[in-house]
């Protein structure tokens, strides 16, 4: 099936421009207008603006580390899935089935609280591991599909020119597969950026967490979550432009 499943955004569209513009304007305007009104009526936007940068930092940190670990897991599992050896292929497929069947939030709880009984790890490590294992199972497919998308004649041509299987894989197949793999990794990372909001339940002070703490103290849910949503929106829109650039750069000529 060629239907798109979860493409985040279409950064070349009018709508993208509009959405970026609006989210940016609101993120600046809401605190700015507070400066000119009395503190009492304030929704706390100024304070939120001062609190959120550290949340953004953690959100991006988890995204970055999670993505890196997912790539490593994905490459290993993806190559395992392509292996001719059933002793590698079957456990690896099993891993993929299981990890895809468990909700990310449950996995995060599982790693941090359940496995935490045996292995001590900071919440950040648990979060990165959770994203690595879960997204790794999807990244595996990115690698597998990227490699399988290279026509098998490429490998065979390499063989007939004198390369052995390993040389053909690493000199001919993988370099070509990266053209599709890299943008796909970008897309996964974009999805992950949004899913990092789940780490707020692990007591990591990401954007959502900072917002939650602020809102439960000041009861200004509407203002807080509006601001939090706008922050996420701006981040995902900007990252989606980055991913689009990757896709354009790597689009087959």
């Amino acid at each position, binding site marked *: 099936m060629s239907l798109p499943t979860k493409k985040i955004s279409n950064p070349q569209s009018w709508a993208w421009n509009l959405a970026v513009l609006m989210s940016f304007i609101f993120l600046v305007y809401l605190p700015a207008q507070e400066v000119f009104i009395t503190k009492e009526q304030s929704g706390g936007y100024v304070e939120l603006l001062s609190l959120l940068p550290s949340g953004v930092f953690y959100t991006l940190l988890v995204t970055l580390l999670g993505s890196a670990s997912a790539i490593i897991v994905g490459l290993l599992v993806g190559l395992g899935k392509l292996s001719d050896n059933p002793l590698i292929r079957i456990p690896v497929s099993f891993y993929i089935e299981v990890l895809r069947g468990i909700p990310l939030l449950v996995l995060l709880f599982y790693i941090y609280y359940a496995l935490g009984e045996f292995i001590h790890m900071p919440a950040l490590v648990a979060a990165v591991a959770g994203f690595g294992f879960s997204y790794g199972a999807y990244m595996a497919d990115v690698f597998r599909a990227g490699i399988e998308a290279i026509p098998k004649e*490429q490998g*065979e041509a390499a063989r*007939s020119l004198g*390369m052995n299987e390993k040389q053909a894989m690493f000199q001919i197949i993988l*370099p070509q597969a990266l053209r599709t793999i890299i943008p796909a990794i970008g897309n996964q990372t974009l999805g992950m950026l949004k899913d990092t909001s789940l780490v707020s339940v692990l007591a990591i002070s990401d954007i959502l967490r900072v917002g939650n703490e602020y809102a439960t103290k000041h009861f200004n849910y509407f203002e807080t979550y509006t601001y939090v949503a706008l922050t996420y929106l701006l981040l995902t829109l900007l990252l989606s432009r980055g991913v689009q650039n990757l896709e354009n750069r790597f689009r087959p000529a």
Partner: protein
Amino acid sequence: MVKLDSISKSFGGKPVVENVSLEVEAGERFTLLGRSGCGKTTLLRLIAGFETPDSGTISIAGQDVGSLPVEQRPVGMIFQNYALFPHMTIYDNIAVGPRIRKHSESEIAKRIDELLEITHLEALRDVYPGQISGGEAQRVALARAVINRPKILLLDEPLSALDLSLRQHLREELVEMQRALDITFLFVTHDQEEAMGLATRMGIMDNGCLQQVGTPPELYEKPQTAFIAEFLGEVNRLTGKVEQRSGNQITVSLASAGTFQCVSDLPGPENQNVTCYVRPEKLFFDTDRPQTEPVNVLQGTLLGIQFFGSHTRYQIELTDGQTLTLSIQHRKSRSLQYSIGDSVRVLFAVSDVFIPTKK
């Protein structure tokens, strides 16, 4: 150069290549022709080493290659889409083979420059495969394969992805290159014209079996099986009864449509049903100039006329309902003027009728 001895191969119990024996000599352009799915590609892949035969032996230049992995066999391969490496320049594409064999870069450069000259690709040296035309891609694929000095070059329908006019042009170029580089070709195709136009010798495959091997005229004019007769070029079929035979001279009766003669050492009883073949270009109208050899004459009605520029094809229905196609090239200004519905007499030489005898 390449010798196949009773090669068989099946996939999942389904025989794909059956007991094929074949010898290709040095310098030949040998073409394997067969319908889609008849096992041509599989045969090439067996020679290249991508598949292992279930039985039989393959030797190249006298050496049994059965135990050699792909990369050690002295064969080159050209794929249908050429399989150039898109992430490397033309130069680097061609250099893949010698580099893997650890030749020195200066030596490689020298040989590539030679090859680029022969293949008229000097200007494309540092260009990527995405930016070149189909014809250029074919030449790059050739250069990349021959730089390894393979004993034989296997070509799997390298022209079938191209459009017609380019195909005709590249076919001629391929022949030229083969002569210039002096390599042995084993060429696979499902296109009869292409096979005949390219080959010095050819073989016809059907259902995994090699049916007949010979020069193109041999196969076209003396097909041993009905399959070949019908597959290779266009042909008229006349089905009738053996009415009389004296020596190899046979008279065939078409019931209401009359009789005709042919020469064949067909075995079997008189009165048996027989299917005879005659090519459309061997038929004449009554009005054509008289023949000097013995001819058959059949009466029919003109059903259709199709003009094709260089030739016209006429459909004639015999009185027993069988139809014949007659094809005339317009070597002289067109003078013949029948129209549809006319009653016509169709002539053909006795020696132009043939009956394939093998099953």
